[in-house]
């Protein structure tokens, strides 16, 4: 395998990757994800920036899901009577009010639910380093930096696409 390219070859430029201010609401996050995804599936991550365009973190689908949970489901609570060990049974109760709660998402701020950045990568670094970081870090996107400036995002799926091509070509050689 010879993934000889650099991160710059595959990264999505910052302007094309969904990003919001930390003070944006979860409702605005969904609107941004919808707009960025068009007719295809939702983007699975959104960058959260501060008012000076510095990266605060990423908001992934799991962050969003956790933010939407009602208090009685958020902490895997054990102090409610009658649930035994099956707290998930309370999720059935949530059906009653979850629609209303979803409409309250304008009150939830993105910055309160971001995941800190686990790793970044330079635009001119080799794709093998990106593959290593994706293999060893539980992230699906890596912010791409040039100096201290974020210039784009590298997605696991795009790196994996390249690797599939390389593995299959090696398989043909073998």
């Amino acid at each position, binding site marked *: 395998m010879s993934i000889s390219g650099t991160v710059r070859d595959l990264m999505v430029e910052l302007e094309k990757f969904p990003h919001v201010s930390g003070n944006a609401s979860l409702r605005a996050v969904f609107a941004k994800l919808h707009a960025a995804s068009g007719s295809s599936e939702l983007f699975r991550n959104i960058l959260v920036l501060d008012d000076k365009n510095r990266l605060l973190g990423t908001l992934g*689908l799991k962050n*969003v899901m956790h933010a939407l949970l009602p208090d009685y489901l958020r902490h895997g609570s054990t102090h409610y009577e009658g649930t035994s060990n099956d707290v998930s049974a309370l999720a059935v109760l949530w059906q009653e009010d979850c629609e209303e709660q979803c409409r309250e998402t304008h009150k939830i701020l993105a910055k309160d639910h971001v995941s800190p950045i686990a790793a970044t990568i330079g635009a001119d670094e080799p794709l*093998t380093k990106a593959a290593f970081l994706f293999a060893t870090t539980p992230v*699906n996107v890596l912010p791409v930096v040039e100096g201290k400036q974020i210039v784009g995002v590298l997605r696991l799926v795009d790196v*994996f696409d390249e690797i599939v091509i390389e593995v299959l070509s090696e398989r043909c050689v073998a």
Partner: protein
Amino acid sequence: MPITGTVGAHMRPLAEYPQIDADATLGDVFAMIGQHFDAVAHFRSVLVFNREKRLIGKISLHDLLKVLLPDYLAHLPAHIDGTDGDHSLLALLWQDDSAKYVREVAKQRVGDHIQPAPAPLKPDDPLTLAHYRFAHSDLNTLPVAENGRIVGVLRVVDVLAAVAATIHPA
């Protein structure tokens, strides 16, 4: 469809989800992803079944990448001089010497690299239950079973699409 729906209304039928036999090779997984599915765009894992057609686990894109790592990257080498804790620098070496290693990896059995399958949902479970399970785990897909047979897969992105439809109705 809003978040008040059921798992069955939002799951992907099993036939639409990438799946492979546990005795297939890792090379077969890459070939399947590369040739038969628009898999990378929509899926982050492949379901793995045994000879009796029972679901025994899954292998994710992260798992496949890990398997491809050479030993000096897979087993973080604290004993290697000069890396200053930044083992990713060693990834540069990988560019040069990995072709032979990848050919060997491609012959390995898929079943030796899987993660166990999580407990399945039922088609008539409320979507809020799936939301809860996803929110409290690192899972991105959950199998859906009916009468002991796997009939589909629910992805985390399917649940969020339902939430999005509730927040911003079309």
